[in-house]
């Protein structure tokens, strides 16, 4: 019964956090609500015997990625959303689409039949050993591809974040673009 209680507490916490993400006016509150959602989901991962994914979720996701978001908020300063937008009825139409979408997912879950499980050994299910065995045998090719993806993302992020400034080793075309941009923008 403890597992059921833990599930409901964490589910309510996650839904409240999700509501907080979309209703709070300041971006920093949205981000901190997302951290709440991620921590609640990590406990659910632990319930579903995914120990390694739990650790990755807490350390990488709630730790690193969210700190990145907070850094960007600190860099850009507090940006408040203005009351009126350019699109009329955006709020109502968005909510309507969301509710219809949720109804579709709910009706799909109603008629769900589950396949029988494979009856593996649950005492080692989801441990680091099993995950490593899966990553380095059956999933070796996707695993290497994700490392290439991370490299591309890192190089792209560095290139984009240097875009507005003159620096050593930049191409002539990029330097011209930076020159034109600086002329438009006196305080840069």
């Amino acid at each position, binding site marked *: *019964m403890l*597992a*059921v209680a833990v599930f409901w507490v964490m589910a309510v916490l996650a*839904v409240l956090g*999700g509501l907080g*993400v*979309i209703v709070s006016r300041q*971006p920093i509150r949205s*981000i901190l609500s*997302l951290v709440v959602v*991620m921590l609640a*989901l990590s406990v*659910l*991962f632990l319930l*579903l015997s*995914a120990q*390694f*994914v739990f650790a990755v979720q807490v350390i*990488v*996701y709630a730790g690193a*990625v969210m700190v*990145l*978001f907070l850094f*960007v*908020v600190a860099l850009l300063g507090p*940006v408040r*959303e*203005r009351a009126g*937008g350019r699109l009329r009825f955006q709020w109502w139409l*968005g*909510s309507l*689409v*969301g*509710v219809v*979408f949720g109804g579709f*997912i*709910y009706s799909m*879950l109603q008629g769900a039949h*589950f*396949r029988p*499980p494979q009856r*593996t050994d*649950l005492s080692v*299910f*989801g441990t680091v050993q*099993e*995950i490593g065995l*899966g*990553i380095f045998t*059956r999933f070796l090719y996707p695993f290497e591809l994700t490392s290439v993806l*991370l490299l591309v*993302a890192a190089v*792209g*992020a560095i290139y*984009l*974040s240097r*875009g*507005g400034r003159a620096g050593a080793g930049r191409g002539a075309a990029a330097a011209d673009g930076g020159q034109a*941009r600086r002329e*438009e923008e006196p305080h840069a």
Partner: protein
Amino acid sequence: MPDYGQIAIGGGTLSSSWFLGLAAILFTLGAIGVLIRRNPLVILVCIELMLNAANLTLITFSRQLQDLDGQLFALMAMTVAAAEAVVGLAILVDISRVRELEDVDELDELKG
């Protein structure tokens, strides 16, 4: 026909449908957030919320089928989400040098 959706955890049993329903609620909240919010940073946060809901679905099915592939897929999805967040935030910082970042509806031209 037995109900294979029941998952025995500790002393009790939990239904897979509860986890899937929670994931559906969170995904729908994220989708609503992308549609109704206008701050680009908050839109990125809502995309992260949707990715997390998808991860919960993957891990639920992994446990229900007792197949480890779902957890490995979830790890790959986390990598993709991290890369997406890094590139998206870098684009936001680059845009914010040129103009104010208040409303994504104002970013409707390719020329910076």
